[in-house]
C-alpha cells in the first residue's frame, strides 16, 4: 500500500471519526458528546466521498450532522439541560461487555483484514446521484414506497408520543 493522497485522506478521516467515537465514550457532558459525534459524522461523510458516494455524503451531513444531532440536542434541552452522562460503576457487566466487544472485533477483524475482491473498474462516481435515483425509482420502488410509510408512521408516532397533552399535561414539565 503506497502512501497516496487518498490514503492520507482516509487516514485523517478515520482518525477523526475514531477520535469522535473515543470522545463519545470518555466525555461526560452530554452536549460535548454530541459535538464530538458531529466530527465523527462529518468525517464519515468524507469517507463516503472517498468511496464515490457523493450523494450519500451529502445526505450524511444533512441527516446526521444536521438533523439527528439537532434533534438530539433538542431532546437534551427538553429533558435535562445540564445532564452529565458519567457511567456508574457497573463493574462486571462492563468487563464482560468489553471482553465481548474485544472478542467480537477480533473475530471479525480476522475475517476482514486481508479481504480483497480484486479491483473491478466501476463507474460509481459518475453521476452518482443519477445512478441512485435511477435505481431507487425502478428496481427499488417498492422498498422506497414502503420507506415512505415507515417515515409517516414514525412521524405520527413521534408526534403523538412527544406532544404535550393540552388538557391534562398542562401542569407537567
Amino acid at each position, binding site marked *: 500500500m503506497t502512501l497516496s493522497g487518498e490514503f492520507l485522506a482516509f487516514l485523517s478521516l478515520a482518525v477523526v471519526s475514531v477520535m469522535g467515537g473515543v470522545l463519545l465514550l470518555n466525555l461526560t457532558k452530554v452536549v460535548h458528546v454530541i459535538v464530538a459525534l458531529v466530527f465523527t459524522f462529518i468525517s464519515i461523510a468524507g469517507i463516503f466521498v472517498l468511496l464515490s458516494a457523493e450523494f450519500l455524503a451529502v445526505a450524511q451531513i444533512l441527516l446526521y450532522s444536521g438533523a439527528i444531532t439537532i434533534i438530539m440536542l433538542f431532546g437534551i434541552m427538553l429533558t435535562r439541560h445540564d445532564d452529565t452522562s458519567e457511567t456508574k460503576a*457497573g463493574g462486571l*457487566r462492563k468487563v*464482560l*461487555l468489553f*471482553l*465481548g*466487544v474485544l*472478542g*467480537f472485533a*477480533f*473475530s*471479525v477483524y*480476522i475475517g476482514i483484514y486481508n479481504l480483497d475482491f480484486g479491483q473491478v473498474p466501476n463507474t460509481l462516481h459518475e453521476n452518482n446521484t443519477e445512478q441512485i435515483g435511477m435505481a431507487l425509482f425502478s428496481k427499488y420502488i417498492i422498498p422506497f414506497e414502503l420507506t415512505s410509510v415507515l417515515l409517516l408512521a414514525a412521524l405520527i408516532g413521534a408526534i403523538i408520543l412527544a406532544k404535550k397533552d393540552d388538557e391534562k399535561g398542562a401542569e407537567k414539565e
Partner: protein
Amino acid sequence: MENAWIIPLFPLLSFLFLIFFGKRLKGASAYIGILLSLASFVYSLLVLFERFSSPTHKAEAVWLTIGDIQLTAGFEVNQLNALMLVIVSLVSFLVHTYSKGYMHGDDRFHVYYAYLGLFTFAMLGLVLSPNLLQTYIFWELVGLGSFLLIGFYFYKEEAKKAAKKAFIMTRIGDVGLLIGMILLFWQVGSFEYDEIFAAVAAGSISTTMITLTAILIFVGAVGKSGQFPLHTWLPDAMEGPTPVSALIHAATMVAAGVYLVAALFPLFTASETALMTVATIGAITAIFAASIGLVQTDIKRVLAYSTVSQLGYMMLALGSAGYVAGVFHLMTHAFFKALLFLAAGSVIHAVHTQDIEKMGGLWKKLRVTGPLFLIGTLAISGVPLFSGFFSKDEILIAAWAHGNTVLFWLAVIAAFFTAFYMFRLFFMVFSGESRSDMSHVKESPGVMTIPMVILGILAVVAGYVNTPWFGTYLGDWLTEGNAALGHGHIEGPSWIMIVATVVSLLGIFLAWLIYCKRSLSRDWLGAKTMYNILYNKYYIDEFYELTVVKVMKFFSLFLHYIETFLVEGLVKGVSAAVSGLGRLGSKFHDGQVQRYGTVAFVGLAILIVVFAVTGGYLK
C-alpha cells in the same frame, strides 16, 4: 367314592349360607352347621368303608392353563386321605355339636358357625387334594379359618395379637412350602403327587434338589404344625374359643403338617438328610415343648404345649421312616387331644377361668368332665391300654429301629415329661380343695358332654386298630400297595414298651406326689432361674421380638429415611434447583435495559468466537 368331592361342599355350603343369612337365623345357625357337618361325616364314613374294598380313586379337571402347562384340580381318595376325612369330619361334627352349648349366648353365634364351616371345608379339601398346588390352596384356607377363629373375640387385644401371630408364623412356613413346591414343579413338571413320586422313584431329580425341596416343604409343615422354631403361635392361639382349639389346634389343622409330610413321604424317604431333619426337629420340639408344659398354669396353654410336643412326636415318627407310627399317632392324638380340649372347655365353661392355680377339687363337681379328662390324660400319657400307649410305642420303636438313638432317648424323656405335666394339670384341676370360689360350678349340658363321651370312647379304643398284640390292621391297610411307605409294622425290641410304660407311670407318680399328695415341694425345680426360663418359654417370643421384629422395624425405618431423604429429597432437590434457577434468572431480569443488550451482544460474541475458534477457518 366318585362323589367324595361333595364332602367338603357341605361345610362350604354351611359357611356361605351362614355368612349371608346367618344373621337372621341367630341360634338356629347351629343346627345348619351341625347338620351339614354330620352329612360330611356320614359321607366320609361311607367313603372310608368303600375305600376298604376298592382301590385309590382320583379325578381331575383342568383348572388353569399356563402356556403348555395345565394345572389341574380334583380329588384323590387313598388310604391316608380317607382316614383323614373321617377324623376331620368326625371331630368337626363333634365340635360343631359341642359348640352349640359352649358358645351359647354369643351374639355372633352364626359367624362362629360360618367360620367353623369354612375351616372344615378347607380341611376336608386339604385332605382330598391330589396335588401339591391344591394342597397349598387349602393349606392356606385352613390357615385363614384358623386365623378367623383365633381372632373370633376380635375386641380382645390378645385375640387380635394371637390371630395375627398365628397367621404370620404359619405364613413363614407356607412360603417355604410354596418355594419348595415350585422348585419341585420345575423339576417334575407337575404338581401331582403321583407324578412327583414317579419322578423321585425314577431318579430324575438330583438328591440335592430332593433334599432342598423336601426340607422347604417341611418348613411349611413346621409352620403349620407348630414345630420348633415356629411353634410360638400355637400356645397363643388358645385365645380362640376352646372348641376351636380342640378342632383346629389339636386335632386337625396342626396335624396337617404331619399329614403333608406323610402325603409326601416317598419324597422324604428319598433323602436321608431330609428325614433326619424331620426327625431331629420333631424330637427337639417334643422335648422342648414338653419341658415348657411342665410349668404353665393356664389350662389351655398346658394342652397347647402338649399338642406341640405330640406333633413333634409325630414328626419324629415320620422322620424315622415310621409312616404308620406317625399317622397312627396323628389319629389317636386327634381323639384324645380333642377330648382333652373339649373337657378343658367344659371346665372353663364351668369355672370361667383358665388359671389352674385357681381351680382344684373339681372332680366332685364335674362328674362327667372329670373322668373324661382323666381318660384323655391317661391316653396322652401313654398309660397302657389307652390309645396313646400304642401309638407312642410305635413311634419309639420306629425311632429306635431307624437308629436315632439320641432322638429316641429324647422322646423317652419327653414321654416322661408328658405324663408328669398332664397329671400335674389333672391333679391341680380336679383334686384337692378348690382355690377359689367354686360354688356356682355346674356340669355342662348334654350337648357338650355327649361329644366328649364319644371322644372319650375313641380315645380308649382307637389304639386297638393297630397293636402289636391284636394286629396292625391300620398299618397294613395304610401301606397296602405302596412299598415306598414302608411296612405296616416295624419290629422293635420289646423293652421299649416297658421303658415307655415305666416312664409314663413314673411321671404320673411324681405328679401325684407333688400335686395331689403334696409330699414333695412344688418348688421341685429348685432353682428359680430354671423355672423362669421354662415359664417364659425359653424367652423365644422375646428373642424374636428382639431380633426379627426389631430388625424388621429397623430396616423399615431405614427405608423410610431413604424414602424421605433420598427419594423425596432428590425430587425436592431437583425442584428446588429448578425454582432456584428460576429465582436467579428472574433476579437477573432486573429491568436494566443495558444489561439485556449486553447479554445479547456477549451471547453473539461468544457464538462468533466459538465459531471462529472451532470452525476451522483460521489458518
